[in-house]
């Protein structure tokens, strides 16, 4: 998908190249929430530029390393955000017109350490984790479901793929934290039963300051739930709190949330206090009969997420056309 070029020669040419980049290669940093700084400012790490050819869907990222310039060609019509990571790494997120093109790049060698597609990646405050939605195409003929994935930024490619998944796989990356029961196998989020189609209903993922919990909203066939994923070491647990109409609409007389779209914006997961964690959730209902409301949830308001599963796809045998 992406290509790496490392040039240690032709310094003059590289210098000229960088001058060209500096004219056209500003990275806008338009999505600071990816770096864990919603609404904040994340400066572009020094000596990094990019030039994009929107018409061809290609971006070239350049890193000045000592006297050399490393260039990476990324499948992105623009570079939207670069986040510095520990261990001399960078997270580079490109726009594709569809899902995000997520790249992990070595700032010391210019090597492309991993590259994959996902939706709405957000780094935890301690820069250990990346929560995201599994890739699916923008335009589909078959039902799809959201599948929420956790990527360990301290591990390499192999450490973020299930055994048996190719290291070149650009979609089955990370491990599933919700819906519980899915295992991030190839294509397990598309062509799924209609009653298993989860939808993302918050505008982003929201990490707790201690990076040990992340919250977001999910809608399963009209039932809105707040999803809480706790991270303890390498272990994750997933909990859900179905939002009632009293919570979501301010009107308990409304029969269920399937009638309305209720969006969650900026839920705030507080710090762990003993076994409890307070989560404040502003809720905005698109339904006209609802009023702006919000709820404060505690650990006891959540239940462990139920295991969901459906039979693996059974395809007719593939038949190859004879060579002409």
């Amino acid at each position, binding site marked *: 998908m992406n290509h790496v070029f490392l040039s240690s020669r032709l310094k003059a040419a590289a210098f000229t190249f960088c001058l060209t980049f500096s004219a056209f290669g500003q990275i806008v940093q338009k999505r600071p929430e990816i770096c864990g700084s919603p609404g904040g400012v994340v400066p572009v790490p020094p000596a990094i530029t990019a030039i994009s050819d929107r018409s061809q869907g290609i971006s070239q990222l350049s890193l000045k390393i000592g006297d050399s310039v490393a260039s990476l060609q990324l499948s992105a019509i623009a570079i939207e955000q670069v986040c510095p990571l520990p261990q001399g790494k960078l997270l580079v997120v490109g726009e594709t017109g569809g899902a995000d093109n997520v790249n992990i790049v070595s700032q010391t060698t210019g090597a492309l350490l991993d590259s994959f597609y996902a939706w709405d990646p957000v780094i935890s405050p301690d820069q250990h984790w990346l929560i995201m939605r599994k890739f699916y195409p923008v335009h589909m003929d078959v039902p799809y479901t959201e599948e929420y994935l956790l990527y360990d930024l301290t591990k390499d490619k192999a450490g973020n793929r299930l055994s048996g*998944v190719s290291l070149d796989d650009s979609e089955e990356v990370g491990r599933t934290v919700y819906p519980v029961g899915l295992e991030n196998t190839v294509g397990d989020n598309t062509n799924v039963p209609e009653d298993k189609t989860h939808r993302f209903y918050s505008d982003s993922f929201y990490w707790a300051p201690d990076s040990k919990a992340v919250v977001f909203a999910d809608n399963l066939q009209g039932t809105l739930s707040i999803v809480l994923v706790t991270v303890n070491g390498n272990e994750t647990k997933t909990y859900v709190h179905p939002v009632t109409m009293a919570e979501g609409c301010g009107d308990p007389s409304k029969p269920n949330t399937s009638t309305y779209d209720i969006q969650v914006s900026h839920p705030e997961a507080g710090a762990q206090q003993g076994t409890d964690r307070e989560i404040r959730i502003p809720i905005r209902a698109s339904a006209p009969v609802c009023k702006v409301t919000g709820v404060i949830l505690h650990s006891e308001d959540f239940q462990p997420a139920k295991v969901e599963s459906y039979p693996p796809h059974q395809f007719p045998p593939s*038949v190859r*056309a004879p060579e002409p």
Partner: protein
Amino acid sequence: VDGNLYLNWLSWATLQWSGWVSLGNAGGGFATTPSMVIQQNGNTVITAVGADGNLYLNWLSSTTSQLSGWENLDSAGGGLVVVPAGGATSPISQPAPTPDPPPTQPVVGSGSATDCNNISGTWTDNYSDTFSLTQSGNSVSGSTTNSNPICGDVTWTITGQVTGSGTFSLTEFNPMPAVDACGHTVQSGQTATVTITGCTTAQETYTGPSPGGSSFAGGGSGSGGGSTEAWTRLAPPTVQITAADIVSDSINITLTGGGIDTLTVTLNGTTNGVINPFSITLAQESQGPGTHTYHFGRTSLQPGEYTSVTATWNGATASTGSNFHFNLIGYTRFSQYNTPYENKCGPANAFAYIYRTYKYNPDPTGKLPMCYWESAPLNSQFMNQVTTNGTGISSQYGPLKSWGAIQMCGIPKGAKVDGTNTYFAIAPNVGVTGTCNGKLSDGSGSTAGYNGSNPQSGSIATNPDPHGPSATWACSDMVLLINSSGQNDSRGLRWAQDLCPVCSSGFGSSYGNTDAHIDTYNSGAGCTSKSIGNDFGNFYAIRLR
């Protein structure tokens, strides 16, 4: 050429060629190229699938040089599948999933109301006296004219009060002239009670204080207190909303039967996020019978669901029916997207795996198997675009969909394990479709290969997905675009037909202080799905459902 199989063999015994011998055909014609094997014993076995789907066998004896003739071995598993050799053929025309419902047509609201117990209007009694009355709340005002061919007309001012439902007490005073043409001083202060008995009928009772010189008293001179008269009027006060049309930004109201009164026009609804319904006064002014036009003030409304227009005049309140409603999404950023075209990306430089047949695109002859694929060259950037976008137009196959977008066959052996170089060929007549399974259009009316003639209304992509559980968007929703000058976008209404996963963001202060984000389909060709660089524009978006 004649469809028969011919055989010419060399005899080991004589080293002579037999010459061409016709074996005829089998099963009504060959559906496959016959195949031939020579067994260890030297017999030659020829097999072929006939047009009837059965397997046929013919064999040549090595000892007798005799042909057995075609034997029908029948078929298995419901029929034999024929896999032809050779290069690509045109993708097969087959139905795609059934499109979701057609678009909602904009509703023009209407309603009418009459208040028969309102005394407003022009009444006439048995003596041709006329009473022009206007009721405002519990007060009545107006005038009455007594026609007298001998002593001339006299006109009084009338005031009065509502005393009950449809009952009134009226007083006439200030006669003009004060002395009639016969020299009589005209009386003032005469009173009467009026009871409305029907929309056009009432009974008036003269209550004094003295007879003569009064319209209330009948024929001008009257017969004293207690006399009664029948009143009639042509029509009761009626207010009619003849057309409340958000698309044309007009509310047409026709007033009949009453006098001049305050006409109040209100728009009723509920703002998003606010539980209490509210009303916006669109007009409040004195109006008499006639037709009057008002406007919605579309660019100054708050986002929300609007459910009715009401008009109140002379005690009657008309309201649009329950089918009238619209939802102001808000000031909305309309970005643009298009379908990637391979010929805009460059020449083929990689190999892809193309499924020719699958559930939505089976072979109509039934001969090609499901999940029949072939390897074909494609441009690598185009492949990336089709993978992420889901759809693209290849130079060789026409419309392709990514493996993830259809996923009705497994990943072919040898293809990338994540399916990123496997695609499904779409029948050209199906064209480019969105999540609602309808053919996408940009509404321009211009012919574009796989978008038909781009008919109205142009397609838009929304978030949440219109094809799903969302209450905000449905596949039948239409959207009216209004510019900041209050004018409808000249390119017409738009139709929710597709999902825009990124439209939950991409609006706000960075995009002209917009409240929402909708992606507009453009049939222009480019390598990427974002080749149409500019936004469609920022508009006030009104959802019509």
